[in-house]
């Protein structure tokens, strides 16, 4: 008899999804599926829209990660119109981008990941939330996280209107400049972000790495997956979140490809399965391998750990030191330990903060030359950035009038969708045996996909009371044969 465990909705992540776990005759896990149950069709309904409206439309794809969509779109317009942003405009965009990275990575780490890590994966669920985290790290630090998030969002608001839905973004520039007065508070925010980033890494080391039990979990097979990795790198093959070439390394860390984002179609294929609305990306030159890991796989991962696996170093000095330590601790590059996404995330937040500091002090930041209007419509534009969750590609084509005729978008979650499926299955196999679903199994399974996705568990975890959660174990016909409840 095939039994089925349904987790719906999966919670504490952004987007709609569903996990189905099928049990075999012996009561072990036969299969598991991570299903994306939604599609909106942006690629189709953007046809006929003026290209310059795209940076205002596409952030609606995701309100948690809207800045990367706004930025990829704006860069696609630069390309489409054959213009480079002015130096001041580029700095302003990068300031916006780094501020987003800092706030987004902390939201993810402290409110989503930290309950599992800092409080403990098998701690009492009633404590495994941000209240538990604050109890462990102190109220002052909790306040600091909220403060840094708020101040970074103020930078975004200044440059791009609403942080949940940035509105700026013009080909060849930005719509609004920065004044000398604004620079002062931006500089202060950048300095405090660097200081906080170093502190967050220290905290991670104290709480997680110095605890053998947690470190073992990070290094355990249940949370390990051998795949390729993809990300943007700069000309020195260092982590670059805003621009560069796409590099892919194989499961052993050897370079598989290094290409201009314009050539993405030659390298990336998207497989279609009838059980999910998401297209499953894979390496076209390897060929679709199905949902497998190891040397024969064509699956690759993107996001913080992928970037630190692909790049040969960080672009800023403090982050570089941390990068070296991470790879040393995890046994060399590439690291296949899914939970290490969280560690990589903190190192990236440090690079983004250091970068923000550099920009805040750049004399050009307050320049007055905000637009390059030297257009030469090319009718094809590709914009690629590293979103917090991974590589994001926007590809537009237009008619002679700059009206959209074709759109192709590849978002981070697509690259990771098939690996997420596998990660969930591996974790489920570890925690379901002999018809017995171990207590805490649900969280262990959810822990397998949380490293990939951001979320806004945020302040809401400060709710009093518990978060009861049931697992229904169903037979083939869907009737419940067992119910497990969290206390």
């Amino acid at each position, binding site marked *: 008899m095939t039994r089925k465990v349904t987790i719906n909705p999966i919670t504490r992540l952004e987007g709609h999804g569903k996990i189905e776990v099928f049990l075999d005759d012996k009561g072990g896990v036969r299969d598991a599926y991570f299903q994306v149950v939604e599609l*909106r069709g942006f690629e189709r*309904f953007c*046809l006929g829209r*003026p290209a310059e409206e795209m940076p205002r439309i596409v952030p609606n794809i995701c309100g948690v990660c809207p800045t990367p969509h706004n930025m990829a779109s704006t860069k696609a317009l630069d390309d489409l119109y054959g213009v480079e942003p002015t130096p001041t405009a580029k700095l302003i965009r990068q300031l916006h981008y780094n501020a987003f990275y800092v706030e987004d990575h902390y939201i993810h780490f402290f409110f989503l990941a930290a309950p599992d890590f800092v409080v403990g994966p098998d701690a009492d669920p009633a404590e495994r939330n941000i209240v538990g985290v604050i109890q462990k790290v102190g109220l002052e630090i909790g306040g600091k996280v909220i403060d840094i998030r708020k101040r970074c969002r103020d930078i975004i608001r200044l440059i791009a*209107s609403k942080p949940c839905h940035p509105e*700026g973004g013009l080909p060849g520039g930005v*719509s609004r400049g920065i004044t000398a007065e604004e620079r002062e508070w931006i500089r202060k925010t950048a300095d405090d972000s660097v200081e906080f980033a170093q502190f967050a890494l220290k905290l991670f080391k104290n709480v997680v790495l110095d605890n053998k039990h947690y470190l073992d979990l990070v290094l355990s097979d249940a949370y390990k997956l051998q795949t390729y990795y993809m990300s943007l790198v700069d000309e020195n093959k260092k982590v670059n979140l805003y621009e560069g070439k796409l590099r892919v390394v194989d499961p052993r860390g050897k370079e598989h490809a290094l290409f201009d984002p314009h050539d993405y179609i030659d390298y990336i294929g998207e497989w279609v399965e009838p059980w999910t609305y998401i297209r499953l990306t*894979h390496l076209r030159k390897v060929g679709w391998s199905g949902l497998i890991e190891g040397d024969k796989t064509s699956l690759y991962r993107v996001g913080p750990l992928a970037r630190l696996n692909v790049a040969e170093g960080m672009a800023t000095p403090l982050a570089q030191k941390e990068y070296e330590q991470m790879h040393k601790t995890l046994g060399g590059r590439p690291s296949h330990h899914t939970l290490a996404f969280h560690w990589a995330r903190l190192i990236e937040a440090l690079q983004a903060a250091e970068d923000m500091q550099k920009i805040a002090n750049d004399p050009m930041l307050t320049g007055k030359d905000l637009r390059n209007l030297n257009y030469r419509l090319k009718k094809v534009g590709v914009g690629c950035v590293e979103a917090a969750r991974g590589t994001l590609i926007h590809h537009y084509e237009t008619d002679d009038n700059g009206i959209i005729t074709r759109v192709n978008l590849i978002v981070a979650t697509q690259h990771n969708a098939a690996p997420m499926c596998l990660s969930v299955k591996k974790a489920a196999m570890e925690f379901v045996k002999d018809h017995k679903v171990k207590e805490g199994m649900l969280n262990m399974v959810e822990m397998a996909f949380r490293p990939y996705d951001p979320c*806004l568990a945020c302040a809401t975890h400060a709710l009093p009371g518990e978060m009861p959660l049931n697992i229904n174990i169903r037979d083939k016909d869907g009737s419940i044969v067992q119910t497990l409840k969290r206390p």
Partner: protein
Amino acid sequence: MAEKPKVAICWLGGCGGCDEAVVDINEVILRVVDAVDLILWPVALDFKYHHIEAMKDGEIALSVINGHVRNSDHKEIAELLRRKSQLVLAFGACACFGGTPGLANLTTKEDIFNWVYRDAPTVVNPKGNHPQPKVSVDGKELTLPEFYEHVYALNQVIDVDYYLPGCPPPPDLVVNAITAVLEAKLPPKGSTLAPHKALCDTCPRNKTKPAKIAISDIKRIHEVEADPNSCFLVQGILCLGPATRAGCGEACIDINIPCRGCFGPVEGVADAGAKFASALASIIDVEDEEEVKKSIDTIDDVIGYFYRFSLPSSILGKKDLKKTI
């Protein structure tokens, strides 16, 4: 102690920005959490739908719903929450009017599927697969919600008591709405919990806008460097301010970007696009109707500008909704 009112926050076809907008009320959220019992918030809390199913009808005091209805899951969740709730608040442009993704009503489900699963240049699909509501994979049955032909605003699927527009709604209006509910100081059913004026009435650039504007040539935003101090319409740049409800604090105008209408139509107007067209006609500096028509014809994407956030609930959108769910 009296039991706290139960509140659900839920998304349908949303982007998550509306959920983030709730978080953006920062410290106020603590006050809310003190006063109410949050019983569902998928993005943040681990409650599942069957917890809601187990509740009595009307047991939830308020459901705050964001996102539009695009598939059978959205519809089921909306209906479930309606049944269990005394009040339903449509939160954000998607729930209120269908939102930007509502522009998909100009195209068919088939067109969308063909591009996404067949024609996009990156697709590799030798078996010609596309998502199915029910499919058997090696003897295991997997299900997906049914993708509808159309995008629906929330009130086209369930009864809605109050509306809070914006993409997403700004923190001050979110706080006001929550306070009104908690203190039971709500306006009549069906009200929009935002100012009744038009955005132009509160816009700092309004003083530069004469009664009659001489636009003969409509410019696109990337073509010019807009003067940050004068009305966009005066500069020949489309700005939906005359037909859009105030309340966002001129968020876009402040970064020198014109309004696209995420707050929806002004009070008493059902069709935002028609209202804007007539506002535009009255300010364009040409005498006869033919000329007005010619000016409007130079706009490349009338629907995308005039109905950016409201196509499903517009006159145009309604025509198409015959194939009901």
